[in-house]
């Protein structure tokens, strides 16, 4: 056991925060450290249940994958479960599950994450295992071939053999964005997935999977000092790497409406999605968009739901929000706000678009009243308590994102306040600046399958 080891190896403790009071809101403990090799470490104890969450986020998402290798960032995520220096194929998974834990990984625009939720007494075991695969990926040609099969089946089940498969989450960024990094098929063209080599895998690992491109977050039931000792022991000797210059992710300002339509051989009803580009992260307009999203789109009392579902009856549900693959808190580059719905073939798409346009313009024509603003803020607060206050993964996700993208995980205790600064005037200004029709991308799905229910169905 190495429990009482000193933390001498942790040379650069940037800040050790113990926030006493963050105003009216939730107060999340945040301890932030950086190892010599650049690894960011965030600890946030919560003793509600005897579980710990270990989350490792690498600052490499599908925006940054190599050209000609679409889908590679995600394929690579699968490879991280295929074997490392001391753990053979399946052994990482078995180690976590036989410890009484659950695990998963996911690939997103700006990060790839790996997380394990285990009984608290297994924290050291899991830190050792995560360090092992950060230090030394060890996979074979056979593993790669196997996971290409798995991933191509993943694309088939989620996209190719499914009505509305990539709509709008996979399709829309390809139409709304101009910069290749934001606009390519990030699940991957099957032929490009198939072309990936072991050398590609090695290169990707060496380039991006280094401690100075990652953050390790531990939340849940643990002792900080003890945890930091283990982190130091297992992670501090992993060498840093020289990171390439980050790519330019900027999107040109959109000056003209874009429209696209896509045939779907499996769909029986038309569908429509409308997207707008988000204001830059962490600006006042960004928080205003969080409020606008609530007012327009979230919940049964939202304006688009009231209009399209209840008064016009064109659909049963309007879906969407900020960041179709996450939340407004866990991305870094350009992002879209999207609303989408399915409707009957008898409806006119342009009529529905006009209704959406009118609801958006309504926010510009008339300043929102205090009650509407308060309702949106209450909903944001209610959601926030379950994110930031979660004892497991959702809190870890926020801390990892804020450490990785802003070098400031303690931001978690200032987010609520930013929303409270949003005024009706700011909302009007933001709508004017970001939600004009020239700024939108409209994507429609043309149904190519027969409508069985329309024709009577089975008896």
């Amino acid at each position: 056991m190495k429990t009482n080891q000193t933390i001498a190896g942790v040379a650069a403790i940037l800040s050790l925060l113990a926030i006493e009071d963050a105003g009216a809101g939730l107060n999340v403990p945040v301890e932030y450290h950086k190892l010599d090799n650049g690894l960011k470490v965030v600890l946030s104890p919560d003793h509600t249940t005897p579980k710990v969450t270990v989350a490792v986020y690498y600052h490499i998402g599908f925006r940054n994958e190599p050209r000609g290798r679409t889908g590679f960032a995600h394929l690579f995520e699968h490879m991280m479960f295929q074997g490392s220096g001391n753990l053979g194929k399946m052994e990482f998974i078995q180690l976590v599950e036989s410890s009484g834990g659950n695990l998963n990984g996911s690939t997103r625009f700006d990060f790839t994450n790996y997380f394990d939720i285990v009984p608290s007494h297994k924290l050291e075991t899991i830190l050792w295992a995560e360090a092992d695969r950060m230090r030394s990926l060890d996979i074979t040609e056979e593993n790669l071939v196997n996971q290409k099969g798995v991933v191509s089946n993943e694309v088939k089940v989620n996209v190719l053999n499914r009505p509305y498969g990539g709509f709008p989450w996979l399709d829309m960024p390809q139409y709304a964005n101009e910069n290749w990094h934001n606009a390519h098929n990030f699940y991957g063209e099957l032929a490009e997935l198939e072309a990936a080599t072991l050398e590609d895998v090695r290169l990707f690992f060496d380039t991006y999977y280094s401690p100075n491109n990652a953050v390790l977050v531990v939340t849940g039931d643990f002792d900080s000092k003890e945890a930091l000792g283990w982190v130091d022991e297992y992670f501090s000797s992993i060498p840093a790497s020289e990171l390439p210059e980050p790519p330019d992710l900027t999107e040109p300002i959109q000056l003209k409406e874009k429209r696209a339509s896509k045939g779907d051989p499996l769909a029986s009803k038309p569908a429509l999605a409308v997207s707008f580009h988000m204001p830059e992260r962490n600006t006042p307009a960004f928080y205003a968009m969080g409020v606008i999203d609530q007012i327009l789109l979230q919940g049964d009392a939202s304006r688009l739901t009231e209009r399209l579902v209840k008064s016009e009856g064109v659909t049963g549900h309007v879906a969407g929000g900020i960041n179709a693959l996450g939340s407004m808190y866990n991305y870094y580059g350009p992002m879209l706000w999207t609303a989408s719905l399915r409707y009957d073939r008898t409806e006119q798409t342009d009529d529905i678009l006009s209704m959406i346009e009118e609801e958006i313009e309504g926010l510009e024509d008339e300043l929102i009243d205090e009650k509407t603003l308060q309702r949106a803020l209450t909903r944001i607060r209610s959601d926030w308590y379950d994110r930031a206050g979660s004892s497991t993964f959702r809190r870890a996700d926020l801390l990892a994102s804020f450490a990785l993208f802003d070098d400031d995980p303690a931001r978690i205790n200032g987010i609520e306040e930013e929303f409270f600064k949003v005024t009706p005037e700011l909302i009007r200004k933001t709508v004017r600046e970001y939600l004009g029709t020239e700024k939108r991308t409209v994507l429609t799905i043309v149904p190519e399958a027969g409508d069985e229910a329309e024709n009577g169905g089975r008896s």
Partner: protein
Amino acid sequence: MTRLRRIAATAVVLSLALPFSARAERELPPEGGEPKNFSLPEAHTFSMINGLRATLVPFGNVPKVSVGVMVRTGNVDEKTEEIWLADIVGDMLTEGTIRRTSSEIARDISDMGSEVRVRVGADRLSISTDVLSEYGLDAMRLLAEILTTPSFPEGELERIKADNLRSLSVARTRAQSLANERLSEVLYGDHRYGTTYPTKELLQGYTIDQVRAFHSKHFGAARTHVYVVGDFDTKRMEMMIRAVFLSFAMGPPPSEQIPNTSSERVLHLIDRPDAPQSTIRIAISVADPSHADFIPLEVTNTLLGGSFSSRIIQNVREDKGYSYSPYSSIRTHYHDAYWVESADVTTEHTGATIGEIFFEIDRLRNEAPSEEELSSVQSYMSGSFVLSNSSRWGIMGQLIYADFQGLGDDFLTSYVENIHAVSADQVRDMARRYLHDENMAIVVVGDTALVRAQIEPFGKIVN
């Protein structure tokens, strides 16, 4: 009043023995420390004179509270010519009460920070919400109002039917929905569980009188159980529940329509021209949750195909790469259960996948698993149980399951112990007793032209 007992610490996570190959140069993972105590949060339960029951569980450290009202009705109470009437009733519940319009309901619950969600299942209907603690009592009042005094405005019915028609149309284009529909038909036949979808004509024909009649006939206090989990004042919440459900009529006792199931080895092939994958279901009826074999069966399922480390996933996914998410599960209704393996597999590997699934079933029937493999599975299951009891909805879900199936007060407190009491021989015996592959029904939704020859060796094919 029921008190949940403490679970012995050692029962939660047994010591770990890993099936590592003995490569000498390898470093072994650190063992970790001693397992910590875990106890289920304490529940306060009470019943009212009209038969309504309530379970209150203070839990957590954020100012939120989850409220769920579970009613023992659902599609099972529909007659043959009423398919999805329960779903329409569920949708209509939030369209207005005698005191509030649908927009008022939407705004009021939004002002508490949430939504009202109504879910209609085969034998359970739930109305739930998740609000800031300061609104817990208001939320309870609102849910009671929705359940007991809906106004069922006729003007909204056409719209609700149109929404359901759209859902029906989309369901009919999904391979998984079609596979599940056929499987239910095969397993349950004429029992209400055997029919999944209505015809368009049937759905279009429902009237507001039918909606009202279904509600008055199948809803009532005796079928209702209220759950509250989170940060709230127990005493005040109990007073509120007693007040808002005081005049709720007792209504009928829960209907107990337990199906007689049987299955045979027949392959049901549903054509999906040009499909790049085949959607497979392989299923058989098993002992239900009230049976002593059920927990051993759960262990057997987890080891065979119900966890990432399980045999079928290792084989079909991690060895062969035929599928992304093959998994097995035990699906339950009230006192009824079946085991099912589900997989979406590359079309050309349809036959090979079915072969591997049967290979793994037979292997387990022939030989008990090693102690190492079993204890890994048991640790995984107890860890998952603790995790399920680490969130408001998780806790509520466990309580609802135990109450609904009538498993008794000690079911949850002794669950971990019972998982660990299962022996390796018992796992093999469960496979022998229940997983008769010669009687398993197989459903394949895929490209018939490419699939038929592959699956012919497995039995008689019907379309």
